[in-house]
């Protein structure tokens, strides 16, 4: 294949460069985690200390840091976690279901206007969120949704252009004979969708669910605009509130809070690494 390194020197060089690269990419996260195990004065001390010292105190200090963040009276991380989970679950459920349905309409039903509508779906991917964020806020406020979590999850129930595109591509790869057989057996579109298409497209649905989950978990701008009550903040917003509240949050605690926000994503990645990387690869290459 491409440039299979022939000599052992070449191999060594490639390894060395890649190890350095991987280290550079992981360093910020490692440093974040390390900082969260130190005392405030160690984190901000004059000398560069890589590990907490004494090392034997680190476990207790770590627990203390995370406990301090979790129970901070002015910033309620447990509450923000719950809000984020509510938005994530409702939003992911809606996104997967609606995108799957709409993609079926584009992939398996022949109807007039299909080509044009699908082109519009693709075109909407070009519209940046900031372009519509202002009026969207006004629409939500007219609907009486400002002050609730609805602006963050209701729109997901109407599908997302990218996910519709992705699922349609996947459905196209499912042999038509399978659902035509089902149709001949008397299945309606609805029956075909549930009995044939959904079971066969589980990996693609998993990709949609995972990526949408990450999207919701990471989203900052929409919560920043649509959420007003502090009780409804999501974790991303809560993290900023935590950072800004006194102007000089101790770095060890801020890093503990950041670690908490990242940890679930990290865990999911460890468990579903292939789905993630496979998903990204297929999106990019087919797109």
């Amino acid at each position, binding site marked *: 294949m491409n440039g299979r390194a022939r000599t052992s020197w070449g191999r060594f060089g490639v390894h060395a460069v890649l190890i350095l690269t991987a280290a550079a990419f992981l360093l910020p996260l490692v440093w974040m985690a390390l900082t969260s195990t130190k005392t405030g004065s160690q984190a901000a001390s004059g000398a560069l200390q890589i590990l907490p010292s004494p090392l034997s105190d680190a476990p207790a200090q770590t627990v203390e840091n995370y406990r301090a963040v979790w129970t901070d009276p*002015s910033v309620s991380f447990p509450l923000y976690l719950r809000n984020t*989970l509510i938005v994530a679950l409702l939003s992911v459920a809606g996104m997967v279901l609606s995108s799957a349905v709409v993609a079926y309409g584009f992939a398996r039903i022949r109807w007039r206007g299909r080509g044009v509508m699908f082109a519009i779906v693709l075109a909407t991917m070009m519209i940046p969120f900031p372009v519509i964020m202002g009026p969207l806020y006004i629409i939500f406020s007219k609907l009486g949704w400002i002050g609730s979590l609805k602006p963050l999850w209701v729109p997901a129930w109407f599908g997302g252009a990218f996910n519709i595109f992705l699922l349609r591509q996947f459905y196209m790869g499912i042999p038509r004979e399978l659902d035509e057989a089902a149709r001949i057996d008397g299945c309606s579109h609805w029956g075909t969708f549930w009995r044939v298409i959904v079971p066969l497209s589980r990996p693609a649905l998993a990709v949609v669910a995972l990526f949408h989950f990450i999207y919701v978990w990471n989203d900052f701008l929409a919560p920043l605009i649509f959420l007003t*009550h*502090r009780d409804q903040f999501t974790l991303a917003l809560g993290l900023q509130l935590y950072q800004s509240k006194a102007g000089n949050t101790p770095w060890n605690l801020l890093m503990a809070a950041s670690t908490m926000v990242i940890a679930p994503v990290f865990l999911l990645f460890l*468990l579903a690494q292939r789905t993630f990387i496979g998903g990204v690869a*297929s999106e990019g290459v087919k797109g």
Partner: protein
Amino acid sequence: MSEGSNPGLGRRAAIGAIAAAGAGFALFGPRGAKEASGGRIVLDYWEKWTGHEGRAMQRIVDEFNSSQSRIFVRYLVTSGLDQKTLIAVAGGDPPDIVGLWNYNIPLYAETEAIIPLDEFDSSYGVRIENYAPAVRQLLTHPDRTGKQRLWATVNTCGTIAMYYNRSVFRDAGLDPDRPPRTIEELDAYAKSIERVSADGGIERVGFLHAEPGWWSWIWGYHFGGTLYDPETDRARADSAENIAAFEWLQSYPRRLGADALKKFRSGFGTAYSSPQNALLTGQVAMVPQGPWLANVIQTFSPGLDYGVAPFPVAEAVYREDEPVGLIDSDILVIPRGVKHPEASMEFIAYTQRPEVVEYLSTAHFKNSPLASPSREFIERHPNRGVRVHNAIAASPRGFVCPRTRVWPQLKDEFDASMQRMWGLARPAREELAAIQQRAQQYLDEAAEQRRRRGYG
């Protein structure tokens, strides 16, 4: 994506378990503190303060809640308070009380997005005469018909004075009991405090405009100028006084070197509330600051020998009995559209009782906004500069930020502009000419907006 069948069952089970745990937490996790109100009216009060300052305000809220059984106030800290308030008010879901900044009043008043407090019964006892003369201008603004109304109460008020490190004064052979009164004296003091090492590195300075750099725009006022004339609605950024003031500002980086200063300042923390505060470490001997600095000193360097004096003014402007200084304040307002305006007013009125005002001011180390602070307040105050701060609040030459709705945006421009002048990127005269043009353009746009809507 064909690996759907092969990730081990263990992994799938783990993901399922995580999802289940997440769903469980979403369903049964902690809820927002809808504290048991027992049929009471629950009011949401948005505020900016956390930490020490927040605890003091929380205490007032708690005392209010236990002082009666009809209303329950929730104290909620929010980041980006001005933006969140604008969105919530325009979105029709306003908080019942908001602790904004005084510069927010013009926009909210002109659009009548907050309720004028003089609309409420006078028995609440909230009257403009209660406040120190200079403070009054912070709370009033014309409504749509051009009539001056009272829009807010002061939550706390702080005037900006000069804090100086007396030990450094002594070390430099200066009399700590005779702080500089004029800009000329300030320069002379600063020069005798400055210490530069053999290799050109700055070790100590007397004064830097950029430290802490929170008020980029005030210098002209100390030269007898102003930025805005409300009578004619004209910006005055390029006035002779402002040009003199900002040329004076540029004389510091010219003398000490813009790069050397940058390097010097990167040596101390950007966080003012820390032991690295440059006044506390003695690296900068004189800083313009508000009374809250005394809290920082007490927390991080209780033994610091510091003095407080009015910030110096140009020689021609100096008058001993009428100090010049910025008056800044946090305010309380009631947005239009709240469900129980009189309940909000009842809480606000409670916070304006003299003993409550003085409790909060003392806890925040700030001066009193009231026209006649009590003797005990002055005597027991933890800030040794309280008299100086009060004198500025009472002075006819205490000044406030320009009372126009475009000020928040203009202030951002000024902050950026000050950075350019400080870095000697552009001569003060040119920079001010540019900002004058910009300021007048904003003002004209705002005037046009009022005219279009037929306001007085």
